[in-house]
């Protein structure tokens, strides 16, 4: 049996009095695609951000690949270098792309390998051009991000994350800020990645996409996992009333 790629145990997070995550337990097998769904404020984005330490949990344990961190109240945070190394093993794609506007598209994609891994520029450029071709944007290498459409920006952001050769990809509502006609080009890239065996956690409102691409769906509400299971089971035959109520807002079969 495979060792899980991602293991989360007893994860807790609160902002002041507000408890956002209570005792989250989660394992993700290598190559699995997990969709996190739930209403806004359910903690799904916070959970995703805890996985690469953009949000530091108050308690629990996170392991991704060979790196693990224990979080206890009152314990010192891991050192910045250790945090950076941990993060370099996960690629993150943001809702608002967050491309670096002062760098070309190619520069964006090369930034991780060059600045985090100290890779020679020529080698990073080769990786960058290969990944831009993979997301269908080889011809935009020398353009600046402000010349791109939202869908193109998000595909560059995916290439930028992939350039670090992460073991895991995290998508935080990657298509929520896109015009409807641009959503499918981004979902297409994500679908290809899943088919290649990338381990992925996707926070999404694209329920039809989750049903089609994800192996497992996790429904969260108020900081807890309410229901989880194979994607089609959870979406087509939800067991919990809360899940049913949430899913009733969507056309779930695309």
């Amino acid at each position: 049996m495979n060792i899980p790629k991602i293991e989360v145990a007893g994860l807790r997070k609160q902002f002041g009095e507000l408890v956002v995550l209570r005792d989250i337990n989660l394992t993700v097998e290598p190559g699995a695609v997990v969709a996190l769904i739930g209403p806004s404020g359910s903690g799904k984005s916070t959970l995703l951000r805890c996985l690469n330490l953009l949000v530091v949990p108050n308690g629990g344990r996170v392991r991704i690949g060979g790196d693990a961190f224990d979080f206890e109240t009152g314990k010192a945070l891991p050192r910045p270098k250790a945090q950076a190394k941990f993060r370099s093993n996960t690629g993150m794609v943001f809702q608002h792309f967050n491309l670096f506007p002062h760098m070309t598209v190619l520069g964006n994609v090369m930034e991780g390998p060059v600045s985090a891994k100290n890779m020679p520029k020529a080698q990073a450029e080769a990786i960058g051009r290969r990944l831009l071709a993979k997301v269908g944007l080889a011809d935009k290498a020398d353009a600046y991000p402000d010349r791109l459409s939202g869908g193109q920006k998000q595909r560059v952001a995916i290439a930028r994350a992939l350039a670090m050769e992460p073991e895991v990809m995290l998508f935080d509502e990657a298509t929520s800020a896109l015009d409807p006609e641009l959503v499918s080009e981004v979902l297409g890239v994500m679908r290809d990645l899943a088919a290649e065996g990338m381990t992925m956690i996707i926070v999404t409102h694209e329920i039809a996409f989750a049903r089609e691409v994800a192996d497992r769906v996790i429904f969260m509400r108020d900081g807890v996992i309410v229901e989880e299971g194979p994607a089609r089971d959870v979406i087509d035959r939800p067991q919990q009333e809360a899940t049913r109520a949430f899913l009733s807002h969507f056309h779930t079969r695309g």
Partner: protein
Amino acid sequence: MYTFNFEMLWGYRWLFLNGTLVTIGLTAAVVVLGLLLGLVGGLAQLSRFAVLRWISWAYIELFRCTPLLVQLLWFYYALPMLTGIQIDAITASVLTLSLYGGSFYAEVIRGGVVSIEAGQTEAGLALGLTPAKVMRRIVLPQAIKRMIPPLMNQSIIQFKNTSLVSVVAVPDLLYQGQVAATDTFRPLEVYTIVALIYFVVLVPLTAIVKRGEKQLQTGH
């Protein structure tokens, strides 16, 4: 009606030139040193270490909230009494003006950095860059564009602030003007000339700043 007589000041042209060069040199020194202090002070404000934040806050507020003239007199007259070390007028002037300018630069630099969206820092961190590299590679290059106009403005103010050093007998433009004025009993002509020289140096500078601003808005 007063009749202006500028001709008799021709004999003092080298004095004015000399004073102008001292003023320009002094400005160059206090702008460079002030920017270094401002960079350190501004970034310390954003440090994750409370001690650094506290020290830089104390420095910035101390120098922003006391008059420059008082600071200058304090460094020239009071500090030597406290420490027993006599510093010359030029050193006291450069020190004071740099610290004073640095406190304003620090606020500009801090403001420029925090004006960059949090998403940029997050994207850099998510790639696996250390916080220091995120600052150097991602945040500062973008923030500097936004800082340049206010930094230039502050530097123009610094150019004019150097006129205060005449009170501790640094031979800058205003000081040499005072010498000429006492010599000729023609303060009206002399101070008109002095004002014109400041004006003539600064007007082209402000035009360059304006043009630079426009270029920054359009370019990458």
